[in-house]
């Protein structure tokens, strides 16, 4: 069962002091729990009580106590209060938000935890309860539903019924009545119905006796027994039956090891005086991998599903909280999903960003702890769900591989692909923060704003299209955040009058990609080169047409240009006109769909000569729609096919091993982009660079990557090197022909 964030209703507040509300996490009889964001950017669970309850003085007093309790407890394993107001018309309380499942959900979904996990859980919760007791409080409601799991450790939540430890009488009634569905619960957990609270009450609590810290110890014993066996320690049934069994029966500890049996029996002693203390649960520093894989997957799923929501996307994000991808999990192909789950990549843990990030990256296990200040983040914004998702996803995969290889770099320097400075031990780790912009301009600008505001992000890769690149140009210019664009090739992005201070266009312009056409036509003996500029593709079509006509001047080849309106469906008359004009070679500068129609018309007219197109046509749609008519077409592109380049075999192997499929177009280029950025970061040594300094350094740098040498105009960020590749259609596939040598100068 996945918790989801619902949009705010019109009647909901959008701000509370220090908190912006983003959506609804849940609603109960007494109020609503919202997902919010603090001024510092952290996510928070914000509980707002309905005014009608707030009018009851007793209720307000109780709420005040909860706030005081939450405020006075400071433990790594409890959730800190981020704000509260018991005196407001609608009292509210906000705590740091943990996206993970409750222990109850985890056990219900994944079964009992292994002993190692149970022991680690016990140690960390003992630490949290020690803090509660040190503050002079008794939690009184320790149960699987009140423990949330994050990759770095559990979080004890809900101080809603905590009381001062000295001499309070147990308050069974109110408690049993709303068991499992406490309206005053922070309501972060909604599925603890299976395990009712009574199953975890201490005998003295059940009997209405003196209530002190040992009551929490008993409850913790019951909670650990549940974690170890998957069964409530006193069975299931009506509250009355559970209370009776708690007082009179022995807990159900069947099937656990003798050592753990002894430990838990001590915690579950009926008489508080006989009960073990919390120090029985020796606190050893828990490993990052304290949870079994299945639960880590659940945690990752939760965070991913929750944070996929557009409501959250619109807000400012702190990189340490960002999931590493934000497209809905359900839409991802199996491989991506598998990866996400296995690596626990999308983990969100309040106050636990460090470990969450660490968990997402191989090579940063317990033997290689990474302090937070040593993890530097690169953002990647891409079209992962829109019309260019193939390119976007390939870029994400390539970038992720580069990050993983860098982070797993040891002194031995054994890397599967080429990377920069292998053999050196990196002074920092890199985190990759991935955001999907769907290829839409407005969404892209929003992502760029988020990245710009997240101070943890030092550089960005993306976006995927010219249109989205245009939409983010100004945003990154203003934040001076280095933006390495892998695929946008439009010339205007780096034209001096419009240029951004932050963009690095990491590929040759569309004009350069089309530059070889005149020579290819000459080599093919073409006399009249027909040239179609399809306005559907905007600047790309224009650059291709303009450069080709320009290159043809002074040659013996005549150019015959035709421009067609966007979305032209009929190419018959155009083809007839061009053949009439004597065209014996063609360039089609348009999209894959129109190119397919054009190709079919040419074939129908019996033409089988030179047919050229830029990378806009290097799309499976062209092959599918054109069928036989696609055969023999030649295409040029700014990217290579790593699987067809022998020197890139180590990369292709590592990639295929990592993802289960060979690298897509632009995966290797994105891999290079990450390493280009990492080179810039390494140049600063251990000192975290400022954005402006990094951007300037990158623009001045020359980086020899897998696919090409990168160099930039320091003023406008345009690409100053050459990298154009040729493909041809053969047997229904795009076949990589090879790199096109740079045109001779002068």
């Amino acid at each position: 069962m996945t918790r989801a964030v619902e949009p705010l209703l019109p009647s909901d507040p959008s701000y509370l002091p220090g908190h912006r509300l983003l959506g609804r996490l849940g609603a109960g009889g007494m109020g609503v729990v919202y997902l919010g964001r603090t001024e510092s950017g952290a996510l928070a669970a914000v509980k707002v009580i309905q005014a009608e309850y707030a009018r009851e003085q007793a209720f307000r007093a109780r709420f005040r106590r909860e706030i005081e309790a939450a405020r006075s407890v400071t433990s790594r394993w409890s959730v800190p209060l981020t704000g509260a107001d018991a005196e407001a018309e609608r009292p509210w309380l906000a705590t740091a938000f943990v996206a993970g499942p409750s222990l109850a959900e985890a056990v219900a979904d994944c079964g009992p935890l292994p002993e190692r996990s149970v022991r680690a859980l016990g140690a960390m919760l003992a630490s949290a309860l020690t803090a509660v007791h040190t503050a002079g409080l008794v939690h009184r409601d320790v149960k699987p539903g009140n423990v949330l799991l994050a990759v770095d450790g559990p979080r004890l939540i809900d101080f809603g019924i905590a009381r001062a430890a000295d001499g309070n009488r147990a308050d069974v009634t109110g408690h049993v009545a709303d068991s499992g569905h406490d309206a005053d619960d922070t309501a972060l957990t909604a599925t603890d119905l299976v395990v009712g609270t009574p199953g975890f009450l201490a005998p003295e609590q059940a009997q209405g006796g003196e209530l002190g810290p040992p009551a929490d110890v008993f409850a913790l014993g019951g909670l650990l027994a549940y974690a170890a066996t998957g069964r409530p320690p006193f069975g299931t049934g009506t509250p009355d039956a559970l209370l009776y069994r708690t007082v009179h029966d022995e807990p159900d500890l069947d099937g656990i090891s003798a050592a753990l049996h002894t430990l838990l029996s001590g915690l579950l002693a009926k008489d508080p005086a006989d009960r073990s203390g919390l120090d029985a649960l020796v606190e050893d520093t828990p490993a990052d991998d304290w949870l079994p894989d299945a639960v880590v997957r659940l945690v990752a799923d939760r965070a991913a599903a929750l944070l996929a929501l557009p409501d959250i996307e619109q807000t400012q994000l702190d990189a340490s909280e960002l999931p590493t991808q934000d497209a809905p999990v359900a839409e991802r192909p199996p491989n991506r999903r598998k990866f996400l789950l296995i690596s626990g990549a999308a983990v969100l843990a309040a106050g636990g960003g460090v470990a969450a990030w660490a968990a997402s990256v191989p090579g940063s296990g317990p033997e290689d702890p990474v302090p937070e200040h040593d993890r530097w983040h690169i953002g990647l914004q891409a079209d992962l769900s829109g019309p260019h998702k193939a390119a976007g996803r390939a870029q994400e995969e390539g970038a992720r591989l580069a990050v993983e290889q860098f982070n797993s770099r040891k002194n031995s320097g054994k890397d599967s692909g080429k990377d920069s400075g292998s053999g050196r031990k990196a002074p920092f780790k890199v985190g990759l923060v991935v955001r999907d912009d769907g290829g839409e301009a407005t969404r892209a600008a929003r992502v760029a704003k988020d990245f710009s505001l997240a101070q943890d992000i030092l550089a960005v890769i993306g976006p995927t299209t010219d249109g989205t690149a245009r939409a983010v140009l100004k945003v990154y210019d203003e934040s001076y955040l280095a933006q390495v664009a892998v695929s946008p090739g439009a010339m205007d992005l780096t034209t001096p009058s419009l240029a951004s201070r932050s963009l690095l266009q990491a590929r040759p312009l569309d004009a350069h990609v089309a530059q070889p056409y005149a020579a290819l036509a000459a080599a093919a003996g073409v006399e009249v080169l027909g040239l179609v500029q399809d306005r559907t593709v905007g600047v790309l079509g224009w650059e291709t047409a303009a450069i080709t006509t320009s290159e043809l001047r002074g040659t013996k080849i005549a150019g015959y240009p035709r421009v067609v309106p966007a979305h032209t469906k009929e190419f018959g008359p155009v083809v007839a006109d061009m053949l009439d004009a004597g065209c014996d070679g063609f360039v089609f500068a348009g999209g894959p769909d129109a190119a397919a129609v054009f190709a079919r018309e040419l074939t129908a007219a019996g033409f089988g000569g030179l047919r050229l197109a830029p990378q806009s046509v290097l799309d499976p749609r062209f092959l599918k729609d054109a069928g036989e008519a696609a055969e023999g077409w030649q295409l040029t592109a700014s990217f290579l096919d790593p699987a067809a380049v022998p020197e890139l075999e180590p990369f292709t192997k590592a990639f295929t091993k990592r993802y289960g499929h060979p690298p897509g177009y632009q995966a290797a280029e994105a891999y290079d982009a990450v390493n280009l950025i990492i080179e810039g970061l390494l140049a600063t040594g251990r000192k975290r660079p400022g954005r402006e300094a990094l951007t300037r350094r990158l623009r001045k740098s020359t980086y020899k990557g897998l696919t090409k040498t990168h160099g930039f105009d320091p003023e406008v960020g345009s690409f100053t090197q050459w990298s154009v590749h040729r493909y041809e259609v053969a047997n229904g596939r795009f076949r990589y022909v090879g790199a096109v040598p740079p045109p001779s100068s002068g």
Partner: protein
Amino acid sequence: MGHRGLGRTALLCAAALLLTACSDSGGDGPQASKPPNSPAPSGSQAGDPPEPAPGSTFTPDPDRVPHTRADALRLARKVAASPDQYGPGYTERSPYESDPARWAVLDEKCVWQREPLPKDVLASITTYSELPAAEGKGPVRVSSVVTVHREVDGADWEMARTLEEALRCPDQELRAGERITGLFSEGMSFGQGTNAYADDSISENGEYRSDQLGGPYPYNWSQARIGPVTVASVIKGGKGRSEQELNQAVEQGFSSMVVRAELELGGDK
């Protein structure tokens, strides 16, 4: 390869001229002038579906779209910019208005000819104005062109043809003794770049030379499509006239035509 020997830098610069002045081109590329409207170029990436236009595009009121030649001509005359709309001091030239039964067509030899309107064009007029020579400065000549098509599709193809002409004939003869050279043109659909005002737009730049007036002077053709109607302002600079004053004149005259076309077509923009 490299038969023409354009270095990468020169190539880049030559192409960049399409978008903006390449101030430090070092003489390799054509010396295009800065487009008077200095539009931000746009377009979509390879294979993009066209970028979704922000907001709605213009939808004319069907009752106000002309269907007869007479109505079309009336609309064209209302929309064409009068001399004062280009700025103070602009006056009508003589003749002021072209023959409405003909329009300009670029022939195979890159020479403009006036030919009868095709049947899918309802009306097309060109009006001629100028800022007369004064105080040692040469005249600035402007033309306003309004064409009313029977269908939007026809107007779309006229825009495509304008772009095609600059590719086919970067050097053109306007009439005997008047030439334009080094033409670059660039199109932007609504929502792309700075085009937030018309269904489609084109800015074309080059240099103008006249046997009578000398040159080279900046030349600009700014064109927009509003539904089935296209409007264009053409400006030819003169001796001693600054780029800034030419820009201003085109901005005023051209934008007034776009606005009037929308008003006349009564759309819901």
